[in-house]
């Protein structure tokens, strides 16, 4: 503890606890208020003032391991589970002086697009209570949008940071696969998962990303690179070539989202960027490929939850296999069960070639689509983040495919490992719309420059 550090950090901790308390109606935070306040004050006494995030409260999605709070993945199968280690991203945040401001609600095991699939109840959209905040990082997005924290960690497998960022009117960044260590992120689809950041502004999200990025000996899929260096805010975007893929602007596109995108594209041109129509011809196959690969990986990753080594043991379990089945059958919620079953199905004998191998082929074709566009001189791609604004709670629960289509514009960046981010570009009938930049691998700095410029050029919280 440092004598000079405590007063400012303590004030920040108390203020964060107060703000968090005011967001209770959203059900966005899984940490009890009393525990949060106690922990924040204890952290504030330890934090060092030299950190670049000194005193900044950052909420953490509850599928990222922390020592301060239990990690439940919003699942009954991990109810109350205390991790014996913390995620590298969390350790880096603490080393930079940030305060871990509790665990944010999510779709169970990050499987969902509305944060309705949580064992601890759905998260309420901060602007319109009948709507969903998006998902699966819906709790993180709602806390940032409600002003409780300036930034929060989320995780992405198919758009779970960008989609809720778009629905809630905040910034959401998914870095290049390998930019941030996955150590301590509970695995869902290991070839797709990345920790991402939600922030109230591009700068807040970017500086948190910068801190958590960089090499980590505990994750061999984390690239051996220095942390991301933040770019300066550019005066203009002269020299940038921005591609607009026609497949992301279909003729039947939502009129409000179209208006917001048109205004953002006009702003990009006025900033000096050259805007060019491009094509990513295999986009239509992205969602079917994603919903083969992600459940296949999930069915394997979630095999470890069996009531033997950690988490509660559920059911009677008179025989070992009965123990597995009863614990898993009772512990997993409906969407997780569905995905485990689909994943097992596509990997089973007789179906592997038709589904899994084909999906991997599509993945390679999607990566080639992006390479072709970038090789022709395009620096960045701009698209809507989501096809619609936030939908109503319950609207898509009965039809899993309708829910999956909420990720139609985001999952390509996960399948191809590319960095991507969502920036607020206006509102339609009071509901936020996000614009998405997709960049080239390891060139997050270019993407951030464009986002900084666009954020300054258009009022993201105004109706279009």
């Amino acid at each position, binding site marked *: 503890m440092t004598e000079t550090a405590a007063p400012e950090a303590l004030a920040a901790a108390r203020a964060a606890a107060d703000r968090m308390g005011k967001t209770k109606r959203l059900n966005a935070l899984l940490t009890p208020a009393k525990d949060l306040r106690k922990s924040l004050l204890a952290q504030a006494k330890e934090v060092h003032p030299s950190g670049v995030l000194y005193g900044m409260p950052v909420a953490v999605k509850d599928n990222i391991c922390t*020592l301060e709070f239990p990690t439940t993945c919003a699942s009954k199968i991990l109810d109350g589970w205390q991790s014996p280690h913390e995620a590298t991203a969390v350790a880096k945040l603490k080393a930079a002086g940030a305060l871990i401001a509790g665990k944010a609600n999510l779709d169970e095991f990050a499987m969902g697009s509305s944060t309705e699939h949580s064992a601890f109840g759905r998260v309420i959209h901060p602007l319109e209570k009948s709507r969903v905040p998006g998902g699966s990082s819906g709790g993180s997005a709602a806390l940032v949008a409600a002003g409780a924290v300036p930034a929060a960690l989320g995780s992405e497998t198919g758009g779970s940071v960008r989609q809720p960022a778009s629905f809630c009117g905040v910034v959401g960044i998914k870095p290049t*696969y390998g930019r941030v260590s996955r150590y301590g992120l509970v695995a869902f689809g290991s*070839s797709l998962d990345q920790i991402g950041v939600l922030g109230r502004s591009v700068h807040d999200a970017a500086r948190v990303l910068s801190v958590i990025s960089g090499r980590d000996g505990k994750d*061999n899929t984390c690239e051996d690179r220095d942390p991301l260096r933040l770019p300066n805010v550019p005066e203009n975007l002269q020299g940038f070539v921005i591609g607009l893929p026609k497949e992301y602007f279909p003729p039947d596109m939502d009129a409000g989202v179209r208006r917001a995108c048109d205004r953002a594209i006009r702003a990009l041109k006025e900033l000096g960027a050259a805007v060019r129509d491009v094509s990513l011809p295999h986009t239509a*196959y992205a969602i079917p490929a994603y919903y083969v690969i992600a459940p296949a990986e999930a069915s394997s990753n979630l095999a470890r939850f069996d009531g033997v080594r950690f988490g509660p043991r559920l059911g009677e379990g*008179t025989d*070992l296999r009965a123990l597995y089945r009863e614990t898993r059958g009772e512990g997993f919620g409906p969407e997780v069960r569905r995905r485990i079953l689909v994943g097992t*199905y596509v990997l089973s004998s007789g179906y592997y070639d038709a589904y899994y191998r084909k999906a991997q082929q599509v993945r390679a*074709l999607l990566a080639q689509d992006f390479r072709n566009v970038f090789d022709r001189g395009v620096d960045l791609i701009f698209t809507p983040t989501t096809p619609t604004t936030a939908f109503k709670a319950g609207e898509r629960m009965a039809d899993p495919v309708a829910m999956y289509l909420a990720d139609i514009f985001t999952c390509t960046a996960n399948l191809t490992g590319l960095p991507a981010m969502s920036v607020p570009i206006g509102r339609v009938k009071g509901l936020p719309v996000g614009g998405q930049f997709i960049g080239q691998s390891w060139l997050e700095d270019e993407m951030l420059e464009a986002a900084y410029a666009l954020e300054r050029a258009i009022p993201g919280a105004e109706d279009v």
Partner: protein
Amino acid sequence: MSVSADDVRKIARLAELEVAEEQLPELVSQMSRIVDYIAQLAQVPASETPKPFVTGPDAIRFRPDEVRPWPMAFGAKDLAPAFKNGFFLVPKLDAFGDGAPAQ
């Protein structure tokens, strides 16, 4: 329906997941909807075969194959539902009980 109740029973057994009989009709309907949807992958011509794609670093680094201490705040004893003398305690494996070994 492209997926039958027997298909779901078999997959659930493979996945070590108990599924109640009353949940089967809804699962059959939803899984059929999902499988019909992902079946559109068949429309991608087999001739389109680009080089395989893997996310992440171009060259995966390997660690030396050696036992190293792993920093944990507490051990398996405090994590597991049942643990004694260095072992996880589980019920006996009854191969002839609840559904023979998965195929």
